[in-house]
Every structure is written in C-alpha cells, then in structure tokens.
C-alpha cells in the first residue's frame, strides 16, 4: 500500500514568489493534515480537512497561505507571496479519522526562500 506522497521534496524560491505543495493521502483516509515544521521544532498544525471540508484552519496565515482539497482526496497548499520566514518543512499527514487511527506522514517538502 502506498503511503502519503508529497511533492516536491525540495523547493527553492525567491521571496515574493508563489509556491505550491501537493499531497496525495493514503487511499480511503478522510482526514488530511498540513503541518509546518521549523528547524529543530515539532510540527505545528496549519490546517485539517475532513473530506473536502477545512474543519480547523485557525493556525493558517490566511493573508498569504491557502489550501484546498478538491473531491476530498489530493490537497494543495499554496503560499503567495513567500517570505524569508516561510523557509521550513511542510508535512502532510492523513488518517482514517476518529480516535482509533494513527496519522501517517509523508516525507515533507523542504522550502527555502532566498
């Protein structure tokens, strides 16, 4: 069974440019998370989806970040325009939902803004 797939694995962009990350969760997983992980820190939740609905986006900086999960499967996270402080690893995770399943993570996208 394929795991959570993220692309790209690495991205280098100049500040003020847009960037997008893509996540394909495990088949059948209704819950999808996007996390931000700064160097040496734990992941911090940006947004959580239940199917196609964003049920928790309280930590998403909506002035420059946006996300979508069309058809409740794949998801994209976009930053426009990127700032130097956005340099981090962006992790996607999925789970079957509820309290009895673990979250499975992708390998993340390492973003460097120069």
């Amino acid at each position, binding site marked *: 069974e394929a795991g959570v797939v993220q692309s790209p694995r690495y991205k280098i962009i100049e500040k003020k440019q847009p960037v997008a990350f893509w996540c394909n969760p495990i088949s059948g997983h209704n819950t999808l998370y996007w996390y931000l992980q700064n160097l040496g*820190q*734990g992941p911090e939740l940006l947004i959580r989806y239940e199917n196609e609905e964003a*049920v*928790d986006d309280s930590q998403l900086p909506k002035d420059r970040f946006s996300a979508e999960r069309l058809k409740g499967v794949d998801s994209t996270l976009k930053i426009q325009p990127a700032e130097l402080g956005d340099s981090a690893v962006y992790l996607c995770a999925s789970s079957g939902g509820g309290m009895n399943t673990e*979250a499975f993570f992708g*390998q*993340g996208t390492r973003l460097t803004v120069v």
Partner: protein
Amino acid sequence: AQTVTQSQPEMSVQEAETVTLSCTYDTSESNYYLFWYKQPPSRQMILVIRQEAYKQQNATENRFSVNFQKAAKSFSLKISDSQLGDTAMYFCAFLTNFGNEKLTFGTGTRLTIIP
C-alpha cells in the same frame, strides 16, 4: 488548549544501553491518545508507540515501552537495547477531542546512539 512539553532537547546513549525520553502534557480532557513518533534524517515521521488514556496498562512494542502516569500527566518512552538505527528526533504527541481531532506535538528530543 493542550500543550506537550519535552524537556530534553538532546540525549545520547551507548549502543545496547537503555534510554528514557520524557514528556509531560497538559489537558482538561479525560479521554485522549498519546503517541511517540520518530523522525530520522529522511524526515518521515514514523509512529513508534501509542497509548490510550483509558487504559491503565502501559503500551509496549518490542524494545519500546512507555510509562504512562495519567495523574501526573507524564508519558515517557523507554528504549531498551538501543540500536544505531534508533538515532533520530523523537516527538511526543497528543490527540483529543472527539469530532475535532487535533494532533499536537512537543518540541522533540534529538537522540543519538553512540557505537
């Protein structure tokens, strides 16, 4: 709001020895899950072990076991017979709120196994 605290930024231990990583959390919930995740340099988060708060018995997975003290809100991870492949960042995480599940992570402990 739930918080997870890992007070040991870095630890190191000789191969084959036992090491314990600490984690404390704060919540007003009575039902929740606790996890330890491992993150090697490849960045892939891997679940190591899971504990349900309503279970008194400590979870065990091969060389990994936990000491869950619900009243003290403590959840430590013990790694026995440590191996070089155990070198990684370890994150304690907390999941609560039926219908509004949010997985909250601690800041991590960098564990190095010395040959």
